[in-house]
């Protein structure tokens, strides 16, 4: 069954959707959308460094994404507005990454594969990396779930309950870096943030509890991956962007459902 590239692609897409769903909810609740973007853009620099030193792209992307996230954490609140800081860092990291890739001689690198993903070329080895990464992210977030949720509601309430919100933030940052690294192959660095935010945003009007929203986001993400791949096959369109288009369509549908219904 795994011999079929479409099956491998679907499994890769589902893996990423599962990791991105609970994390994406926190990204939405904590208003970290641009933070996710910056972390994802930095990953291209990680890809360049991995290729230069011929090590695993997954490791390189995780390390650089993590460094990026920690840099933002350290620099925030030091004289620049958060959106300015993220704008500077996200685009600088992307630009440095692109320049760094151009220095790598020998192999001709298909840059498009890293910017927009190359889900149809997912190997069995990639699948192992994606599913292990997704399992790690889901395990980490499930383990810290209540503490993360409390910290997200209010930092002082977290302190009063004996939770250190700074430590929870670190767990979230780590989960984000891992998700970015596993999602590169599937949707590429430019569209990773879309996989985080769009399913979670689409799930919001359909949910009454935080857990319900995470599960709904997961289902929407998986549906988008499967339908998006099918659409890409039928219409001969790029796979990663097609998946995001389907996710965006579900967001539209759920927004319409919300507006047709009394507030609740």
């Amino acid at each position, binding site marked *: 069954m795994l011999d079929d590239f479409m099956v491998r692609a679907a499994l890769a897409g589902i893996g990423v959707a599962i990791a991105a769903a609970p994390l994406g909810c926190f990204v939405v609740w904590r208003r970290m959308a641009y933070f996710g973007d910056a972390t994802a853009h930095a990953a291209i620099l990680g890809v360049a460094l991995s290729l230069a030193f011929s090590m695993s792209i997954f490791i390189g992307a995780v390390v650089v994404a993590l460094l990026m996230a920690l840099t933002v954490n350290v620099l925030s609140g030091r004289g620049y507005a958060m959106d300015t800081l993220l704008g500077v860092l996200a685009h600088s990291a992307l630009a440095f990454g692109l320049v760094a890739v151009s220095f790598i001689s020998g192999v001709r690198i298909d840059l498009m594969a890293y910017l927009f993903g190359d889900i149809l070329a997912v190997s069995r080895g990639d699948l192992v990396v994606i599913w292990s990464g997704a399992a790690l992210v889901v395990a980490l977030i499930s383990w810290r779930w209540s503490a993360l*949720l409390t910290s997200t509601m209010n930092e002082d*309430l977290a302190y009063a309950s004996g939770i250190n919100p700074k430590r929870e933030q670190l767990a979230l940052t780590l989960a984000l870096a891992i998700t970015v690294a596993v999602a590169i192959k599937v949707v590429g660095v430019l569209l990773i943030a879309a996989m985080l935010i769009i399913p979670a945003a689409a799930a919001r009007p359909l949910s*009454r509890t935080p857990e319900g929203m995470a599960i709904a986001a997961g289902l929407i993400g998986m549906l988008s991956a499967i339908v998006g791949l099918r659409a890409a096959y039928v219409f001969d369109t790029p796979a990663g962007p097609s998946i995001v288009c389907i996710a965006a369509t579900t967001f539209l549908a759920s927004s319409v459902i919300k507006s047709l219904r009394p507030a609740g």
Partner: protein
Amino acid sequence: MSLVQVEDLSVRYGAKTVLSRVSLRIDKGEIVTIVGPNGSGKTSLLRAIIGAVKPSLGHVTQGSGVKIGYVPQKLHIDETLPITVSRFLKLPGGVLAADIGQALMQAGVPDLSKAQLSQLSGGQFQRVLLARALIGKPDLLLLDEATQGLDQRGSASFYQQIEQVRQDTGCAILMISHELHVVMSASDRVICLNGHVCCEGTPAVVASAPEYRALFGTGTGGALALYRHDHDHGHDHGDHTHDHKHTEAAE
């Protein structure tokens, strides 16, 4: 044995000293109110007591087994986070459904457990926060300007609820309030804070203290009035200096 003892507490944010050598203690069952102008370190003091900010000097000691309930100043719940009142009260976990029901009852909002947090009015929200603070059956309740954003009726009814809670549970209360008329009628003790403890004592003693008058004016014992706020009093500041030149209006 006091519930909480604060000794020689100083708090700095970067180069800015917000609290300088503050000492105080809260005993069982008493109502203590902290008053002081904006930026006088009131919130920092409460945050130091719950451990959210590390003292740069001095320390905060809790009596053994003392439980603290904390009602924060304001809480913005993002509309994108769907959560019911009862789920919010269960966080971070290990809370029994019966305790949630009882806390909501004590806070005066027994019917809200299934409501969405983002749909509550300001007054309802404050009561839910109060319920959350009551869940652990606290010996000490910390309230940071709990009636901010409520109208006068809402605020009066909130304070009545607090009084009811104290009668029912006998817990001590340490609160920050801008509403001087409430403070003066309800507190056992008032602490006047302005980076340091300016003066403290029973409401009557504090109201007649020159330090208090310098901060809050004379006349009505601090009732609702516009007051001049000159900070021209002098007393021992140690190594701590702050700006004494502004003029402010009170609520």
